[in-house]
């Protein structure tokens, strides 16, 4: 399988504006599923189109197994892209759509027919040869688009927002299908998504992009446990950030002093972050402070509390049973488990997140 390396990859659509993709350095492991994650407009699809050869990089290089492919035409790269809106050729049958890539390579009709049948089996749509794309549901079109890409046995499979146009239950099905096929065929796969949950569930590794810049490239759980910056933590649903100063595994904040052995900064200004589900209510013990419950919501599978500790409001997610024990206005003990506290560098003031993401990436990567 193929290892993909992006080196200083940059794309500028015109001279004056900010680059859409800015000096990306990512090494995508062979045979793994890698997510390009980020909010819309962060350059993830642009990056994918450059890998596919549909856009020319302004600067930097793309290497497949160590050799540059920037000068190679898209049809000769062996990187096939599946578009977000499927783009099945509307005037062709399902079989002709799937067989398209083989026809372009001059494969014989009978071989195309057999391999199309195999592909339809693989995407669990046997017998759909003669249908027209118009007669298919969104999920079925997605499967056919996937089959059309896989039939040419690509070295690199590129999926642009593969789940975003599907409704919830189809999304689960498709997710399983993609990860099943990927594991079975072992194709180096890159997919683009704006949904962090999707990235976490599917990907072996996630590259998080903001405004064309790589923020963090890591395994999924690292984005929850050891995010590089406050922005990264926020993107992954982190809500509790308390500024302070840290020194020798402890952090002093406006609401108290906490033991915190896991840290991205050695000393000086820092931010205490703890995920809402890691905060314990009513337990007491070390690393505890007193707070007052401001409000709560019962969500069924869990309950969400807002707790005031002095002037600082934090969010806590607990098991739903807590709702019976605690009511608004109650004073409660709030415990930050030292193992679950993660100390970040201070939040950046300017828009340019480069300096702090650089410094913060080191402990994460």
């Amino acid at each position, binding site marked *: 399988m193929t290892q993909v390396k992006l080196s200083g990859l940059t794309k500028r659509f015109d001279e004056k504006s900010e680059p859409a993709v800015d000096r990306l350095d990512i090494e995508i492991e062979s045979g793994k599923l890698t997510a390009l994650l980020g909010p819309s407009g962060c350059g993830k699809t642009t990056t994918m*189109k450059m890998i*596919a*050869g*549909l856009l020319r990089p302004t600067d930097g290089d793309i290497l497949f197994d160590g050799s540059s492919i920037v000068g190679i*035409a*898209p*049809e000769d790269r062996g*990187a*096939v*892209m599946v*578009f977000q*809106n499927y*783009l099945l*050729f*509307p*005037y062709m049958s399902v079989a002709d759509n799937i067989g*398209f*890539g083989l*026809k*372009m*390579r001059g494969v014989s009709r009978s071989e195309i027919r057999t391999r199309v049948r195999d592909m339809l089996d693989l995407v669990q749509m046997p017998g759909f040869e003669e249908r027209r794309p118009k007669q298919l549901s969104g999920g079925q079109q997605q499967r056919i688009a996937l089959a*059309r*890409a896989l039939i*040419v046995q690509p070295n690199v499979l*590129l999926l642009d927002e593969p789940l975003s146009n599907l409704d919830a239950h189809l999304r689960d099905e498709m997710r399983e299908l993609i990860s099943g096929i990927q594991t079975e065929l072992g194709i180096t796969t890159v997919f683009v998504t704006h949904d962090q949950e999707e990235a976490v569930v599917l990907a072996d590794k996630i590259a998080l992009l903001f405004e064309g810049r790589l923020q963090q490239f890591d395994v999924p759980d690292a984005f929850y446990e050891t995010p590089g910056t406050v922005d990264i933590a926020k993107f992954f649903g982190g809500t509790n950030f308390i500024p302070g100063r840290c020194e020798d595994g402890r952090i002093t904040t406006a609401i108290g002093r906490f033991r915190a052995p896991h840290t991205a900064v050695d000393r000086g200004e820092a931010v205490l972050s703890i995920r809402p589900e890691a905060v314990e209510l009513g337990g007491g013990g070390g690393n505890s402070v007193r707070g007052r419950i401001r409000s709560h919501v019962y969500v069924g599978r869990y309950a969400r509390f807002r707790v005031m500790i002095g002037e600082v409001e934090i969010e806590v997610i607990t098991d739903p049973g807590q709702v019976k024990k605690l009511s608004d206005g109650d004073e409660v003990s709030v415990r930050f488990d030292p193992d679950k506290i993660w100390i970040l560098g201070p939040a950046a003031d300017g828009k340019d997140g480069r300096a702090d993401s650089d410094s913060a990436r080191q402990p994460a990567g």
Partner: protein
Amino acid sequence: MNEKAPANPSRLPSLPRMRLSEKGARRMTIGVLLAPVIVVILLLFMGGLITGFLRSLGYFPLIGLNDFNFDAYLSIFTDNGFIRSFVLTFHIAFTSTVIASILAIASAMLLRPAFRGKRFVQFIFSLNLTIPHLVGAVGVLYLFSGSGLVSRLATGAGLIDAPAEFPALVFDPWAIGIIIQYVWKEIPFIGVIVLAILLSVGEDYESVARSLGANRWQAFRHVTLPLVMPGVVSASVIVFAFTFGAFEIPWLLGATFPKALPVLAFESYTDVDLAARPQAMAMAMVIAFMSSLMILAYMKLSRRYIRS
């Protein structure tokens, strides 16, 4: 039935009846609203067609012809001049349509990407949509006739010795002048339609094709072309029908023999001999019939092309 219905207003059978009458009312409204158009079409077009058809069968009471017969058709189909006119007319329509379609697709492809001054180029491209055919014909005369600008420039440049040596492009048996005029006029007509389709479809389908292993030409041949083909077909059907039946350009730029069918029909019609009228009408019928037939065949062929 009708008396029973009010007694049981909640019974189901009364519902479909109401829907039917509503549907009828809606059809009536549409019919009434469309009536002016239908009247115009029926009176002017169908009326003319039917009158022409009757006269082509020799029914013309005004000059004392009261019998129906196929004499007019027999006489034109046995006339060698008519056959040659027919072939010429088909040649003009087919060649103009094919050349104009190909060049229109090529220009639309060139005009598709963003470039500096695109608006201006597009304006120039579509400019002659507004210029009448007659002006184009006069232009072709000035440019390509034996004493025209191109001939004189060629003489001046020493490419030919005298204007008389310039190849006949106007009043010529191959109708080159006529075809030049039609191609010039119809390229932007088809081109604007193709360009609109190209811009609305976008380039993503071609990107998919390239990504799947098609080279530039394959992506054009197997993806772009089938996508624009419905538009090309509808536009070129109009062009074909028009060029098959149009009178003024072959009249101005055509050779004296053979003449294009519409010219031949018009000359028979205006002949002092009223007995030539049925023949003129028979020719007009043949033009109408052939145009319709060609269009049908052309559409069928193009559909098959799209499918493959």
